[in-house]
């Protein structure tokens, strides 16, 4: 596919260009002859799956990692970038995926770090304060300069990162997966800021794996796969489907194909459920809903509105403060002997936790040990005294085969699998026990497109087998495409139900956004 220069780029050299950059991590060829050009004054997307090398190339441009070979040019001039200091001097700033902030420091101190402007701080502080007020006004980057950064919401922390780069005079701003931690409202805010920056002549590079953001925001896209640039295209001349195919290297189904649900009897019925956190604050305030066999009920909402607590409580991991939880008509809420994680497994309830690394897996354990976590007492894996290691191994190998976990090595530690493969190990463990009710949290967070497709298909198949599924996700796309009914949660309450309607997808998303923002709470 040919390069796609804009009108401006034909007159002036690209703001940022890499030529033939190579990078190895041991035997892993993370960047293979990466050449890309970012025209001045544009928003440029770099897209690819996890491990495609997109973060690596940008870390090299920013001087955070050294390249093994290749050239970096800023405004047509080769620059030697040996450290972030060189990159900053050349006008390149970066907002990392994991924010590089000092939590106890104030916003002002964070911005000042590395650009103090003198041996003592007083003078630089005054100058920075004035400059930041100006930047805030020009680009909508409002933050309280004297608050400790650790107390700010993530959206504001990200604005601090952008301010840091701009204060150092960055003309080229690289953002690595900037929306992963943001709410939809914060994402909109960020995009407004980025467009404002583009209007002022700044050049923006955004690394992401979210196709929707690429389509919405960028002018040009570079697609990477396995360390290589596979395409440079104009956003206006491409489509989500084409980009997905380029990323994965084969055709991908972005929308889940599924028949209408055939709901059966009620499996889970919750009413008036109230949950408190450790400090006694109500996190879930009297919610009620039901899940039938053969349907997927999705709970949408911005994270932190009680969905996580709800899911954990239903999985028996969190005490219930009040209300009723019925499983197949049987009351659980006041029976701690039944309402705990272990007993619920016996009652055929599966749980795919939101955080696979901390809750779903023991990452320092091997895959086969993880494959039987929670079921390790089963007769099938135990002899009279010792565990039956052969049975554990064959079980895990069978699951890995069925779920296409790679590498197919049951003795590999869970930590050494990619996000998608870790998630498949957890899903296999929970689904293959044939649960009547599956509780699923964030099934595809940090998971490649290819694996997302597989996981979605598997969940739909489970539904078609007549199982009840409760899905919690902050990804609206995922909720809308998987769910048969959608419940929206805000501030610990259910705010209403929405039918996922293909034709009205955009409208529903907007409506969800408004509900989440609490507009309907006031109405």
């Amino acid at each position, binding site marked *: 596919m040919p390069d796609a220069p804009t009108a401006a780029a034909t007159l002036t050299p690209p703001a940022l260009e890499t030529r033939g950059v190579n990078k190895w991590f041991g035997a892993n060829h993370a960047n293979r002859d990466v050449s890309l050009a970012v025209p001045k004054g544009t928003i440029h997307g770099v897209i690819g799956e996890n491990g495609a090398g997109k973060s690596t190339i940008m870390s090299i441009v920013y001087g955070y990692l050294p390249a093994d070979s290749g050239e970096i040019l800023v405004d047509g001039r080769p620059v030697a970038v040996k450290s972030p200091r060189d990159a900053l001097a050349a006008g390149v700033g970066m907002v990392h995926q994991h924010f590089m902030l000092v939590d106890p420091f104030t916003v002002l*101190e964070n911005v000042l770090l*590395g650009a103090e402007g003198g041996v003592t701080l007083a003078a630089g502080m005054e100058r920075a304060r004035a400059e930041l007020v100006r930047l805030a006004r020009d680009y909508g980057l409002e933050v309280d300069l004297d608050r400790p950064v650790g107390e700010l919401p993530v959206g504001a922390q990200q604005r601090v990162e952008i301010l840091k780069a701009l204060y150092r005079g960055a003309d080229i701003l690289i953002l690595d997966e900037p929306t992963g931690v943001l709410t939809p409202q914060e994402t909109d805010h960020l995009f407004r800021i980025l467009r404002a920056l583009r209007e002022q002549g700044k050049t923006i590079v955004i690394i992401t794996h979210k196709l929707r953001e690429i389509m919405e925001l960028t002018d040009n896209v570079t697609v990477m796969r396995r360390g290589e640039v596979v395409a440079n295209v104009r956003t206006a001349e491409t489509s989500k489907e084409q980009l997905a195919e380029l990323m994965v290297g084969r055709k991908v189904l972005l929308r889940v194909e599924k028949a209408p649900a055939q709901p059966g009897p009620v499996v889970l019925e919750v009413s008036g459920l109230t949950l408190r956190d450790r400090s006694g604050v109500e996190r879930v305030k009297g919610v009620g809903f039901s899940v039938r066999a053969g349907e997927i009920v999705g709970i949408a909402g911005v994270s932190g509105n009680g969905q996580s607590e709800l899911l954990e409580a239903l999985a028996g991991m969190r005490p219930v403060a009040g209300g009723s939880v019925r499983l197949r008509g049987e009351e659980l809420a006041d029976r701690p002997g039944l309402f705990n994680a272990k007993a619920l497994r016996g009652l055929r309830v599966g749980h795919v936790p939101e955080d696979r690394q901390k809750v779903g897996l023991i990452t320092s354990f091997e895959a086969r040990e993880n494959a039987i976590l929670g079921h390790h007492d089963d007769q099938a894996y135990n002899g009279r005294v010792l565990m039956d290691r052969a049975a554990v191994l064959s079980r895990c190998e069978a699951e890995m085969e069925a779920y296409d976990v790679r590498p197919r090595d049951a003795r590999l530690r869970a930590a050494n699998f990619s996000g998608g493969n870790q998630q498949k190990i957890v899903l296999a463990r929970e689904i293959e026990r044939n649960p009547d009710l599956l509780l699923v949290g964030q099934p595809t967070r940090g998971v490649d497109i290819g694996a997302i497709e597989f996981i979605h298909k598997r969940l739909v198949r489970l539904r078609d087998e007549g199982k009840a599924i409760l899905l919690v996700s902050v990804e609206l796309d995922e909720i809308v495409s998987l769910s048969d009914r959608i419940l929206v949660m805000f501030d610990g309450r259910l705010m209403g139900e929405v039918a996922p309607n293909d034709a009205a997808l955009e409208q529903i998303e907007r409506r969800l956004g408004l509900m989440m923002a609490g507009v309907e709470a006031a109405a």
Partner: protein
Amino acid sequence: MDEVFLAILLLVDATIRVATPLVLAAFAALYGERAGVVDIGLEGKMLAGAFFAAAVASSTGNPWLGLLAGIAASVALSLVHGFACITHNGNQVVSGMAINILVAGLAPTLAYAWFHQGGQTPLLPSSARLPQVHLPGVEVLSPIPVIGPIYREIFDDANVLIWLTVLVVIATHWVLTRTRFGLRLRAVGESPAAVDTAGISVTKLRYQAVIITGVLTGVAGAYLSTAHGAGFVRDMTAGKGYLALAALIFGKWRPWPTLFACLLFAFTDAVQVRLQGVPLPVVGVIPVQFIQMLPYVLTVLLLAGFVGKAVAPKASGIPYVKER
């Protein structure tokens, strides 16, 4: 009345003298830990400082050369610690303990080889010890009640290193809060990645911090052997390095509370000396060993009971390795 007042003044004076090496060592560790380098080798470095200060002062008769030698020895050990922990990402506790064990054996061995006095240095004459600072006007102020005795007993004839320590405390507060170096130092102990991406060398900053640690611990050691004492004695630090670390934690890694913690520990120590062999009401004479336990018992109680919420610098003790 006057006698009670004088006794109190003497107690305060003793507290200050005992507190000085603790403050120096605690502030030394403060620089290291705020930069993310835990230094459990404080004890060993202080001991090395004490030995080399006394040895050089004894051989040359010049206490200032002794002080420099003490600092040099302590800085050298700091650099070893830095090489292990900063350059090679080694475990900071292991490296620190290695230094402690090394010096505990090496100092008496060298002393034995060089001076043949059973692992000590010779008793230093007062000309080979760091001087006290005689203030003017003592005779004039002396007759004035309250102010006179305070001036005479506490401020006059204080050792030069006590005054230096006062400067260190004030300077540390100023450096940490008001200077570029202080800002970066605090940042690198909380979030080295943030410092790295801001274009500042984490390695260089941390080396600077451990060198300051070395200088101050060296001074603390020299104080023990050439100011407070008159020569090096085996194990003369007697756990002061650990006590200083405890004071730092109790002071939550902040200068003023750390100073307060050091003074508190020193005060119990001064009281402890006064109480030895003195019959107390009700209990009578308490065996010396129990009285001597006081500062350490206090340490355990304070650390266990009162500083539950102490939050260390987040990256303290963790080597900085770049993520890919």
